[in-house]
């Protein structure tokens, strides 16, 4: 197993910058998720690491070895494709054995390894079938077995769970994570499902339009989004992001969104002031950090209940504040009805302020 380092990695398809100057290090045995919306360059990055695409710029290292120009067959990576790409004319056994046959392993050793990995993936009873005779979940296990059987240095998975139904997906998430930890294989896992990334990965690389937005642990991604994109992308229901200006007046520091004003603590205000390039900001607060109170208080946001979204464990309250909607999360059972006047009390320790011009977080 190896460390992986991407150094200024770029891939352009004509005018399209599918991946643009990607810098990233992955530790030996680490489970990293590439997370981003459709078309942000996740698959392209994987295919460059696998050696299928030649980077337009930049280098790829396994440990200290530069493998940028090495043919895919000599990289010893295992890959699970988004489509699984199981060879339709080969039985499950032969699909799994294929990489080993290419390595010219002796027959009895191939047999031993195939059976071992099949057992691990709980597909040993399916070895005699053709891929088309398998369910989606079974195909996915076969694809995984084929990627694992050759003791790859790096395991690449391209949205392997996207074809499964919701229940199986949740089951497989846990299984994959456990397996990865057991095998200690360096893993890159591509997904556009943030819950999947958050629940499985040691670290997450959030990408957008070919560029790396943030690379950190799930907790940090959630608590300290580096920019507006990450703030809006991570979290469900998403963070409330509101256009505002930042001002200093006689009383201290003020976030002014027009329809409401919030006074910041002096310490925080100081930091914001020092890091901001202008006055325009995006004010961000997660729904769970908005408490609903039924009487006016100092430093609250006034609005009316617009619609309630019960989620079973939680209740999302959509509050209309002038012309925009703020989502707040509470426990079910509160006595609220659309049209009620409410006040939102923001947990000021947990707010986010982004510089509107640069998009970057200032606190």
């Amino acid at each position: 197993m190896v460390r992986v380092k991407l150094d200024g990695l770029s891939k352009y398809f004509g005018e399209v910058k599918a991946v643009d100057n990607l810098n990233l290090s992955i530790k030996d045995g680490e489970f990293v998720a590439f997370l981003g919306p459709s078309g942000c360059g996740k698959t392209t990055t994987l295919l460059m690491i696998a050696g299928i695409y030649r980077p337009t710029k930049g280098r790829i290292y396994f440990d200290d070895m530069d493998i940028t120009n090495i043919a895919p067959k000599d990289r010893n990576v295992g890959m699970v494709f988004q489509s699984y790409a199981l060879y339709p004319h080969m039985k499950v056994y032969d699909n799994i054995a294929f990489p080993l046959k290419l390595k010219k392993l002796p027959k009895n050793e191939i047999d031993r390894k195939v059976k071992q990995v099949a057992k691990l993936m709980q597909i040993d009873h399916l070895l005699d079938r053709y891929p088309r005779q398998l369910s989606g979940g079974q195909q996915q296990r076969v694809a995984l077995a084929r990627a694992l059987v050759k003791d790859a240095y790096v395991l690449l998975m391209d949205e392997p769970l996207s074809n499964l139904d919701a229940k199986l997906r949740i089951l497989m998430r846990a299984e994959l994570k456990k397996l990865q930890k057991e095998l200690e294989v360096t893993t890159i896992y591509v997904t556009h499902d943030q819950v999947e990334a958050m629940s499985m990965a040691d670290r997450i690389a959030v990408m957008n339009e070919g560029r790396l937005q943030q690379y950190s642990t799930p907790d940090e991604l959630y608590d300290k989004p580096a920019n507006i994109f990450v703030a809006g992308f991570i979290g469900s229901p998403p963070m409330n992001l509101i256009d505002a200006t930042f001002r200093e007046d006689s009383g201290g520091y003020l976030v002014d969104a027009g329809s409401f004003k919030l006074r910041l603590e002096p310490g925080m205000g100081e930091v914001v002031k020092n890091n901001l390039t202008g006055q325009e900001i995006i004010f961000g607060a997660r729904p769970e950090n908005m408490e609903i109170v039924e009487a006016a208080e100092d430093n609250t946001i006034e609005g009316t209940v617009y619609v309630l979204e019960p989620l079973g464990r939680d209740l999302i309250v959509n509050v209309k504040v002038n012309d925009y909607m703020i989502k707040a999360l509470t426990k079910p059972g509160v006595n609220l009805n659309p049209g009620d006047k409410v006040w939102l009390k923001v947990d000021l320790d947990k707010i986010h302020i982004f510089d509107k011009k640069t998009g970057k977080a200032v606190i």
Partner: protein
Amino acid sequence: MGLISNNPSVRSYIYMIIFLGPALFLILFFWILPVFSTIFLSFTNMGMRKPNWEWVYLKNYMFVGAHPFSQKVAINTLVYVGATLAFNVLIGLLLAILTFYMDDRTSLVYRALWLLPRASPPVVYGLLWLWVLDSSEYGLLNQLLAPIYGKPVPWLVNYAMPGIIVINGFIGASFSLIVFSSALKAIPPDYLMAARVDGASELRIVKDVILPLMKWPIMFVTAWQTLSLLASYEYILIVTDGGPFFETEVWSLFAYHQAFQHLELGFGAALAMILVIIALIAVLIQMKLFRFREMITPVKIEHT
């Protein structure tokens, strides 16, 4: 009141005739009638030189076995069909795989070039080959080989059958090329990527992934070409006319010669009928071998 009829079953019957009519008419006149007239002719001693004719029943068929050249022609046919088939399927496959690995524009130009013989009229293509293989020193091949060989080679005398095979092979190869190229395009690229990641060289990918996935297209081309080679003789007629001395006389040409050169319509018809029966048997065998049912279902390239 409806325009045609109010009775739905009558109406649908009328519609059927309106829509199928033209096609049925064509099939009737250009396919069914010739078949029946051939069957009819083959049981007579009709000939263009004779004013009268009479039924001879199976005599023509018996004469096929007795004819001094039947055996020679049968062997020629077997060699010609077998070798040409191998030539055009293999060359077509090779070209398709080569163009598959080229960039789009080069492969397009390449394929277009290979299509030229098919696009040109048979007579033009045949005459072109006559010039290429001409026995005199002015033949193209002889001109090219003059520095090595010195004296001109009578290609169509010494190498008549190989010449015929190559000439027909190139035509067939362009057909296989089209079918195989589009079949290759239909292979999901993920399979090839997966094979590369699994550690396969391009040669192994061709052998272990591409060729198995091309099973149906290869079978289709083989079946199709067998039939068309059995029945076609126009290039042989133009280039060698079966010569020298029955060297390249194949069954269909034999039938043509008997009917329209020796004006033995009855005997020619019997020869043609035998070819039809052999072709039918060949089709039936291939249908069984290739499991025709699976072949005519829409997906020709298997997906998971």
